[in-house]
């Protein structure tokens, strides 16, 4: 068990990569606080963890709101007494070009994907600094490293996450805190069929496009979770400021 006695806070933990990570981290011995905006899904994710013998709480939280983030960290501290791992996973994606993207949609991408990462880290870091150690994992994307089509706000936000990650690594390395980004490729989560629908593509055609990568398939949420576990655990003790690409080779060429 790689996370015995650790406490992890995972945003967007009610579905997809966040939920898979919450389940895996709990299996590896962590007490998990998962946040999200959908209480029903959140309580279900929590129940899944408890029924496997793990420890978890659900915290309703909109990462765009400073006060929500502050309260979420406070609740982790009062429930578990410490915070070791923060996985800034919450994210949104609506496929549009610069011309098609509304101002509201731009704000939502930047506020959830990038500002949410900033806000939650802002409140979590003092707890980690006080403890003298901690790990932050920021969910970027392969599309935070290379551009994608009809994804202007998403790419901007995910590219920002990578450089935010590196800047935080520089600032807080001397304080015993590691900060890395994870860059998934297309993964089997609700976000993917959502994207297909918004692009007006048939699911089979969309999937065929996603499979056009060296490993010939999309990833599973559990595979991304295992990479997040590596970043969360002491196995990555000399890693900070790095972007771990987990994309079946999609950005290799």
């Amino acid at each position, binding site marked *: 068990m790689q996370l015995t006695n650790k406490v992890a806070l995972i945003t967007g933990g009610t579905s997809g990569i966040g939920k898979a990570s919450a389940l895996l981290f709990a299996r590896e011995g962590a007490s998990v606080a998962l946040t999200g905006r959908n209480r029903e899904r959140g309580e279900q994710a929590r129940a899944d963890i408890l029924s496997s013998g793990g420890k978890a709480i659900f915290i309703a939280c909109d990462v765009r709101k400073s006060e929500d983030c502050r309260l979420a960290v406070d609740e982790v501290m009062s429930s578990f007494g410490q915070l070791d791992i923060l996985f800034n996973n919450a994210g949104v994606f609506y496929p549009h070009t610069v011309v098609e993207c509304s101002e509201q949609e731009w704000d939502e991408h930047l506020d959830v994907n990038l500002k949410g990462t900033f806000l939650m880290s802002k409140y979590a870091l003092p707890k980690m600094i006080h403890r003298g150690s901690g790990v932050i994992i920021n969910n970027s994307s392969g599309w935070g490293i290379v551009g994608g089509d009809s994804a202007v706000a998403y790419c901007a936000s995910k590219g920002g996450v990578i450089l935010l990650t590196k800047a935080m690594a520089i600032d807080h*390395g001397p304080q015993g805190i590691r900060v890395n980004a994870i860059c998934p490729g297309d993964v089997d989560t609700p976000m993917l069929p959502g994207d297909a629908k918004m692009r007006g593509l048939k699911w089979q055609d969309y999937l065929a496009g996603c499979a056009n990568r060296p490993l010939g398939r999309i990833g599973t949420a559990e595979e991304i979770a295992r*990479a997040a576990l590596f970043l969360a655990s002491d196995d990555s003790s000399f890693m*900070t400021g790095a972007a*771990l690409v987990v994309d079946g*080779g999609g950005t290799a060429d």
Partner: protein
Amino acid sequence: MSGVLTGKIALITGGASGIGRATALLFAREGAAVVIADLNESAGDSAINEIKGAGGKAVFQRTDVTVSRDCDHLVRRAVSEFGPIHVLFNNAGIIRRASVPELSEEDWDRVMAVNLKSVFLLSRLVVPIMIKNGGGSVINMASGWGLAGGARAAAYCASKGAVVLMTKAMAVDHGRHHVRVNCLCPGDTDTAMLRNEAQQLGELPEHFMRESARRPIGRPGKPEEIARAALFLASDASSFVTGAALVVDGGGLAGTG
């Protein structure tokens, strides 16, 4: 013995010392049968004894990884001792601290042969075995200096940059055969190779090591830390990772400031 590499066969070049040795020990602890290739026979034998003493399985084959026939012999030995290779860690490497005008042609050739051509010579033998066996993981040793330039390290940077792109090209070619290919990009790691650099530069070891510690984490890496990153790439934990350059450098490349 249970572990994430139980039942796997791993071949590690430059496995008698430094990062290679730490990786050999770790992979064996995680259940792999390990084949260590190195020029240094006494160090290789000692690594084998250490692994066996801990209950693990390992053999040593003296190998010059720049010589095609040695590579052929090595791979045949690995397969006949243990079976089809699942993990290939192309770790063998050398460094010559010299700028282009300071660099002799012999040193250029030697650095390129050990750091880059060996990756080609071994991978062309092992990848077909992996394909036939249904898959595998190739880990190539690059460096932070395969992504960003370093001072007085022209041949080293060239070889390591080439390793990064060769890794990506191999990932593109062999993904469909379930062979994953990734590279490791360590920052300064406390090994004999690092300490020898001080000598090459004519610097006091203490001064050199202090410079090595200049990074967000504030110290050079330990061979075991790089080994654990290699383990991630070797195991199913990285099943969706291919064509990637895993930077394990205490934040050295994160930026300035």
